[in-house]
């Protein structure tokens, strides 16, 4: 049989890189690059190059399993679906739908997430969420409030048109490597690159101005820059008066953030703050790129709003080369939010607490059970499971036992459930706690759409069949829903997409037929519409078409270094690993490059603690302790330690403190102590 090249979308980060899977005799045998792809331009990072390694991994779940004593027993699909229907259905009947929780997956397709969310709500449960809660929930809240739309305002390749790229709280060189090609292109054309990060990351190597801030002081830095821009008259007066409201309040709010004062808070020199502010404001087109370093804080929403303020007063939005660019972490976390797998939003960001929304979807979905009001978020569901308020959960393609903060507590909470069903491709730490485990498919074994961080909706084709009796998540969800008495008869992803086209206005024109090339960028309201690569070029989707400047004040993080816990622990990602690591830790060519959990400690701190490079050290926080190998470096300042979160140990340590509005835990700042293990 000849070799067939199947176009697909990379399953790792949200850059949405395309490549071809070479298929011979129904087996995926290789990767070919896709030079015609608009975002990746033919490139692929280490994870993308290793993507096929998980397909035939021996750990893949091949059959439905049920818990039997301490082990697992293989069961038939029929029995598995019966057990799930009995477990979930029993809890629904006995305790009511509000005491059942659903987690959709930001690794699944839009169609699958849409069905999970529809199933949850048609069963009467408002509790459906996805792991966007742990990454960009503050962007959804903050950007919707200030700009009227949550998403990257400009596409990835547009970074090349920028004259100043301000990267804050994002290590994109390791986490979204293909973006660096566009930023380097901008640099060659004369752009200034500013990087703000507590670590001297690989991204910082690109910087002309590097601001090494103390973790959790982003609002102070951003307000300080706004202060300089206002004081030196570098604001865009025309833009402010034409397109914004609330500017006067901001002037008052940032009055006291002098560079000297901000320098004391952030640890960055006053001169660098002024230089960065000037470079950002006076360039003809400046973009702000940010990621988890901004959102994973108790002040996450404030951080996002401070970023939006900066871009609004400088008028750097709505044109090529400008914009506010939240970089998403997972291949379809943008899409999962768009199709309504969020506790506070129905599909298309219709507010869950608006009775009109429930009325609209009741009619469309032909049910009168739809819940009105916000459901529990992913993090709140764990609390509710711990307190016994949530009795049963259905978790699809997520690993909260590894990826939530203070994971020991999360594990106990999940153990406390009466019934837990997990649908995944590997036996993750969460699946270990389940009553029933359903074997699902990876991206290459199914078809459907993924929405990348630049809002690009792309069709990913099926290349191979799932292993054993594993099924696509879409088939599994439909089967479960039918057992629970819902009318879920979909022939495939294309049929579900046409329902999404009808119900999600932004996706109105993104039909299956139009998705054969490199995809479409939402909003795309009808089939003639070419898509909208640049948002806000004709005003904002808020009152009077004006953006809202929401002043914010600096609040210190929930935890600070103390006598007992003298270090600030911050977390992040590595180039060769991805999120909770269930896939990358099983990829031989990735795990061999970073096999162990490590902690970066400043050389001077390590000397005082008598720790040498490579020593086993114990890191302790009030939540628990973990062992890691010490890596001595000057990448982090004194008093700061860094750990990657791809290994189970890290999130044992992280803080439970949350952002009030977005409910995101403060992964990025935990006070800890470090000692050598003797």
């Amino acid at each position, binding site marked *: 049989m000849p070799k067939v090249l199947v176009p697909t979308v990379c399953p790792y980060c949200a850059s949405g890189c395309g490549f071809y899977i070479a298929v011979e005799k129904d087996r995926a045998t290789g990767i070919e*690059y896709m030079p015609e792809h608009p975002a990746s331009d033919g490139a692929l990072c280490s994870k993308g190059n290793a993507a096929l390694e998980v397909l035939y991994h021996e750990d893949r779940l091949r059959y439905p399993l049920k818990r039997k004593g301490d082990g697992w027993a293989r069961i038939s699909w029929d029995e598995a679906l019966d057990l799930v229907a009995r477990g979930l259905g029993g809890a629904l009947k006995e305790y009511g739908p509000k005491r059942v929780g659903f987690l959709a997956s930001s690794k699944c397709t839009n169609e699958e997430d849409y069905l999970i969310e529809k199933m949850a709500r048609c069963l009467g449960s408002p509790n459906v969420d996805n792991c966007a809660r742990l990454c960009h929930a503050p962007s959804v809240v903050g950007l919707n409030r200030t700009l009227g739309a949550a998403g990257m305002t400009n596409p990835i390749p547009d970074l090349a048109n920028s004259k100043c790229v301000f990267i804050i709280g994002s290590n994109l060189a390791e986490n979204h490597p293909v973006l660096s090609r566009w930023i380097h292109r901008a640099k060659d054309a004369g752009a200034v690159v500013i990087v703000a990060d507590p670590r001297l990351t690989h991204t910082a190597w690109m910087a002309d101005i590097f601001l090494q801030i103390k973790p959790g002081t982003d609002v102070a830095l951003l307000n300080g820059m706004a202060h300089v821009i206002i004081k030196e008259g570098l604001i865009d007066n025309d833009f402010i008066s034409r397109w914004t409201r609330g500017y006067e309040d901001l002037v008052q709010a940032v009055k006291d953030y002098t560079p000297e004062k901000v320098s004391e808070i952030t640890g960055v020199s006053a001169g660098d703050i002024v230089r960065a502010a000037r470079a950002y404001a006076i360039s003809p087109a400046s973009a702000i790129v940010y990621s988890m370093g901004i959102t994973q804080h108790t002040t996450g929403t404030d951080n996002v709003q401070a970023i939006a303020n900066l871009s609004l007063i400088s008028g750097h939005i709505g044109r090529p080369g400008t914009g506010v660019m939240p970089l998403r972490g997972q291949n379809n976390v943008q899409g999962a939010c768009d199709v309504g797998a969020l506790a506070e939003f129905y599909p298309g960001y219709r507010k869950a607490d608006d009775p009109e929304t429930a009325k609209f979807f009741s009619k469309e979905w032909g049910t009168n059970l739809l819940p009105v009001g916000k459901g529990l978020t992913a993090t709140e569901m764990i609390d509710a499971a711990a307190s016994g308020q949530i009795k049963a959960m259905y978790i699809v393609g997520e690993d909260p036992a590894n990826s939530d903060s203070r994971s020991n507590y999360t594990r106990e909470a999940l153990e406390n459930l009466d019934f837990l069903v997990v649908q995944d491709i590997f036996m993750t730490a969460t699946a270990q706690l389940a009553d029933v485990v359903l074997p699902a498919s990876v991206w290459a074994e199914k078809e459907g759409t993924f929405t990348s961080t630049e809002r690009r909706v792309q069709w990913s084709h099926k290349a191979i069949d799932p292993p054993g009796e594993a099924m696509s998540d879409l088939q599994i969800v439909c089967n479960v829903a039918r057992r629970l008495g819902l009318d879920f008869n979909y022939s495939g992803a294309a049929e579900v997409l046409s329902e999404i086209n009808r119900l999600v206005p932004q996706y109105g024109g993104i039909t299956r037929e139009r998705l054969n090339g490199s995809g479409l960028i939402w909003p795309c309201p009808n089939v003639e519409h070419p898509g909208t690569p640049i948002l806000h070029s004709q005003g904002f989707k808020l009152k009077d078409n004006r953006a809202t400047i929401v002043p914010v004040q600096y609040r210190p993080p929930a935890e600070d270094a103390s006598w007992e816990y003298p270090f600030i622990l911050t977390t992040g990602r590595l180039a060769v690993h991805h999120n909770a690591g269930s896939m990358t830790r099983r990829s031989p060519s*990735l795990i061999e490059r970073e096999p162990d959990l490590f902690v970066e400690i400043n050389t001077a701190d390590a000397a005082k603690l008598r720790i040498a490079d490579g020593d086993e050290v114990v890191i302790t926080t009030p939540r628990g302790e973990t062992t890691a190998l010490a890596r001595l470096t000057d990448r982090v300042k004194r008093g700061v330690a860094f750990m990657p979160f791809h290994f189970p140990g890290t999130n044992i340590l992280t803080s439970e403190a949350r952002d009030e509005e977005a409910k995101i835990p403060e992964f990025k700042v935990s006070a800890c102590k470090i000692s050598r293990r003797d």
Partner: protein
Amino acid sequence: MPVYVDISRCIGCRSCEVACKRVHDGKGHVNVHFAGDHASVPIFCHHCEEATCTMACFTGALSKDGERTAFSVDKCTGCGLCRLACPFGVVWTDKLAHKCDLCAGRETPTCILTCPANALSTDFELASKRARARAAMAAAQGGRR
């Protein structure tokens, strides 16, 4: 036609390592070296003009083929002299020798295609061209900020 590195662009993502290994059946010929906390550079065969590995190889398995330092696996005895002779440590012997073959059979070496930052190319001048462009732009804009 060796592969040249623009060190100012390397982001240490190790894509070239993984991609090289992927297309060479599990034996990669690139190592990304980290220079402290401040830079990284992929290290692989330079295809030297006066290649010491070819001088050491007594069977002629390693030989110059134009700009390329070619390797013919059939003639290799696995003696390891090439590994000792290479001043850059980019020829390996596990039973038989292996080194960068500029992806024989492919139009462009895989590392060049996969590099997310466009740090690799076959154009010797590219890195200096880019540096000149940046300097010129900076001068036109009134100096570095």
